[in-house]
């Protein structure tokens, strides 16, 4: 095939040592390399030719064995023989959004998640930005789903009792000379992309009115008033709960191990908890979505994980400092070819500032370790955005991996070769923003495949755990009179009451771990990082969740205790 030959020539010239071959209209790259960056580069070169439907990069890294997927040790038969209409693989924001939309139809739906809770991958490892899409390609799936989702977002969050706030976002520039080119370009791009809220080009003086702590040296800003934020894990859990409320089922610690495919159709799906026989499979497996696609004999894309690290600043010190998410445009010449946004200072929905993220290509899909080098990079890059931001105000930091494809666009479509699979893969930024509309499309396609009508009654509203700290004194008092547990503050940094923790433990998708409580009610997310409240959370998990206290886990299999002390034995 001519295209393959052309690509091979290009590879031999720019990134030699690899072999390109055809699989229908896709390309398969093979070979071995000692340098991981070469493997990624080969994939990029193949994708950028635009010749192929997709890039399947099978080049291996010499001397490296992939870390086995993190998995629960559970082996049982609880799902053996189950025949759900729809099996959703992956409990991130995409899987949960799909599950909720599916639960509008007369379908039996099961979501399997390999971890013990929802939102354990990228959905709890991002900044919660709800983007406006000014940086996106006009014809991308990213922009299409972003724009449709932006129209849904405010009402969806209201229905799910999840906070949503439009703080605006801005790109700050240090160079005035750049303004002559960049400002008209950004205006045109905003118009072409139908950016919600548009773009405003602001002088330093104008920007100071929005952001009084803007650092010296910033000459002008492109302000995007439509930029918003949400808690990505809170929204994921809310979507999941709403789906369960409408009849969907969720199975945790459930790992898809293989699939039986016959005549381009998935017949069965083997998991560590039994073999299932779903009619339709939905692939929302995040950084493992190409692995799942491969099991389904439908791999036409490749995930190359891109790690990012964010640091979280103390709320008390920083809430006053930043009113809007802000990114400083790199100095000319510093800009590298990158597919991830520049990161910046991002006030979260809970009014902490996140600093970051960076973007590093890594071979391990679940490498969530942090490094001092990353902290220094993100901090060095963004510290000069806002005056008076100090590294001493960092309370913690975390890493996540983006599920990037070589095409750098979402894969939201029905199977290419296999008939009963639908992919929601390659979802990286702006995945949180795009999740609602992706959920709608995929649920619609699945319902059409199975000719399933909508349910007569769908419960739109889901009530979250009350946040007593935001109630006015009168409401708070009335609530405490009804249940005194709401008057006992357990997490002092975030002002979370015992009542809220108990509500979370008894919620519709009950958390079983200390981190599960943290993601639901914020206990332990403050400046002491759980130093004071963790013992109380552990005691409540044991009592209210009827667990043996010695078996309480922080997360996964991570027990907190080994034994009783001598006195207590």
């Amino acid at each position, binding site marked *: 095939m001519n295209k393959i030959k052309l690509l091979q020539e290009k590879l031999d010239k720019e990134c030699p040592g690899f072999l390109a071959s055809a699989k229908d209209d896709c390309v398969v790259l093979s070979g071995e390399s000692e340098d991981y960056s070469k493997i990624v580069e080969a994939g990029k070169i193949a994708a950028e030719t635009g010749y192929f439907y997709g890039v399947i990069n099978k080049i291996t890294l010499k001397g490296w064995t992939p870390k086995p997927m*993190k998995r629960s040790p559970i082996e049982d038969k609880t799902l053996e023989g189950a025949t759900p209409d729809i099996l959703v693989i992956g409990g991130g924001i995409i899987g949960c959004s799909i599950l909720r939309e599916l639960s509008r139809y007369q379908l039996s739906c099961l979501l399997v998640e390999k971890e013990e809770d929802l939102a354990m991958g990228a959905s709890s490892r991002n900044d919660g930005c709800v983007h406006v899409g000014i940086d996106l390609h006009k014809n991308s799936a990213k922009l299409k789903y972003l724009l449709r989702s932006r129209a849904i977002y405010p009402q969806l969050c209201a229905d799910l009792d999840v906070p949503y706030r439009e703080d605006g976002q801005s790109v700050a520039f240090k160079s005035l000379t750049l303004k002559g080119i960049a400002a008209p370009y950004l205006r045109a791009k905003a118009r072409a992309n139908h950016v919600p809220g548009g773009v405003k080009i602001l002088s330093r003086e104008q920007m100071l009115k929005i952001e009084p702590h803007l650092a010296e040296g910033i000459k002008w800003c492109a302000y995007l008033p439509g930029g918003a934020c949400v808690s990505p894990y809170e929204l994921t859990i809310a979507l999941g709960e709403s789906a369960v409320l409408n009849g969907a089922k969720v199975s945790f610690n459930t790992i898809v191990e293989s699939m039986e495919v016959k005549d381009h159709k998935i017949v069965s799906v083997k998991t560590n908890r039994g073999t299932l026989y779903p009619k339709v499979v939905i692939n929302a497996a995040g950084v493992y979505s190409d692995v799942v696609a491969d099991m389904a004999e439908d791999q036409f894309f490749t995930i190359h994980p891109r790690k990012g690290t964010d640091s979280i600043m103390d709320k*008390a010190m920083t809430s006053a400092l930043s009113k809007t998410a802000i990114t400083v445009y790199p100095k000319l010449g510093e800009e590298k070819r990158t597919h991830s946004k520049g990161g910046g200072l991002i006030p979260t929905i809970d009014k902490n500032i996140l600093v970051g993220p960076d973007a590093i290509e890594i071979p391990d899909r679940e490498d*969530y*370790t*942090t*490094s*001092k080098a990353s*902290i220094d990079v993100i901090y060095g890059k963004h510290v000069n955005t806002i005056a008076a931001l100090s590294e001493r105000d*960092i*309370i*913690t*930091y*975390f890493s996540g991996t983006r599920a990037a494809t070589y095409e750098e666009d979402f894969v939201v479509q029905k199977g290419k070769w296999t008939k009963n699979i639908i992919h929601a893969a390659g979802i990286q930024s702006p995945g949180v923003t795009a999740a609602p509309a992706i959920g709608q499309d995929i649920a619609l396609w699945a319902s059409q495949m199975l000719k399933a009508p909508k349910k007569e009654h769908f419960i739109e509203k889901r009530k979250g755990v009350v946040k*007593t*700290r935001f109630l006015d*004194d*009168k409401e*708070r*008092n009335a609530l*405490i*009179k009804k249940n*005194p*547990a709401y*008057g*006992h*503050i357990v997490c*002092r940094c975030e*002002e979370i*009451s015992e009542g809220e923790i108990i509500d979370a433990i008894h919620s519709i998708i009950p958390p079983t771990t200390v981190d599960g409580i943290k993601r639901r009610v914020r206990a332990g997310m403050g*400046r*002491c*990082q*759980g*130093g*004071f409240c*963790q*013992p109380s959370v*552990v*005691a409540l998990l044991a009592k209210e969740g009827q667990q043996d*206290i*010695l078996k309480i*886990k*922080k*997360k*996964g*299999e*991570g*027990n*907190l*205790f*080994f*034994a*009783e*002390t*001598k*006195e*207590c034995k």
Partner: protein
Amino acid sequence: MMDYDVVVIGGGPAGLAAAKTASDYSAKTLLIEREGALGGILKQCIHDGFGVTRFNEKLSGPEYAYREIEKLKTSKVEVLLLSFVTRLKKIDAGYQITLVNPQGVKTLATRKLILATGCRERTSKQVMIQGTNPAGVMTAGQAQYYINIMGKMPIKECVILGSGDIGLIMARRITLEGGHVEGVYEAKNTPSGLARNIAQCLTDFNIPLHLSETVTRVYGVDRLEGVEIAKVDEHMTPIPGTEKRIPCDSLILSVGLIPENELAKSLGVPLSGATKGPEVDQTFMSRVEGVYSCGNAMHVNDLADYVSESGEIAGKAAATSQNVEHHNVKVEVDPQLLYVVPEVVDFAKPTQDMVFYFRAKNIYQNKVLHVFCGDNEILKRPYTTLKPPEMERLKFSLEKEGAIRFVLGDK
């Protein structure tokens, strides 16, 4: 309408002493504590060594707290337990306090406010430890709570980072409880804890202390599996190539305490960069009229006895002092000293028997501390050794107003 003359926030040793003393000086006093029992962190400090100066005997933390609570019971102090202050607001002639407790939301007004809110522990991320985020990484105070209050062992094989007193105490406690302490690592080139704790908690139990070494990284996804140790240079920066990995299931951090002053900040109380507590005068009043500070919220102490003393000073002043036209003179501090508390002397207030606390910046031998007021030398005290971990205390009176200087000279 004022509900109270004095409200004390925090029921640890500082708050207990402050409330008792304010009440002794006829102030209508309320003590607010967020936990279900008084005593603060003393409740979990079951080791001895408390009360040597205050009671002339060695007590455990709970015993010390018990004595203070019993004293409080003889007074008219009202106590609110399980009560969490959510908001402070300046009102005419005092402060409005909003709190929540299992009875509801309560708002009350007081003439004077004493903040005895203690301190919190610095965490692993605040000392830039990288890697994963597993179970088994905990502060010394948290480990102490699990073992001493809950009776649960969170440790089998551990590394302790930081030679602060709580870390040393926990090294012994973990050993007695059947756990194994691989070693205590300290990034500084000198120990951070009291000498008596090094001897009694490490030497007596054959636990090695490694100076100029720190933990840089943790391993293990769900539960800790090991830590990376590296030697550090004189700037406490890890030296590349010196890393070694030590297998363990727990990492205990004793890497410093931070005075808790979120409530103080909400009232605009200026904090000292050196102590991280409010800047205070000799009555331990902050720079905001009618707001006092004491105990570990004011500066981190190493002995509970001095915490109680500072509470008494603040309690007495809050109960008795009238609003006056201030006459503040800032204390000039020798650069060899880390800090001196109080930071200012208000000559409009009594200057008899003032108590000063200070710490040296480094270890010094054979020094003399001179306190000058104007041209007069008020006090001259020799010290064979001065070290940062050991807080020093002075008491003196000033007859006449003048510039106050703490000067550290050679013997």
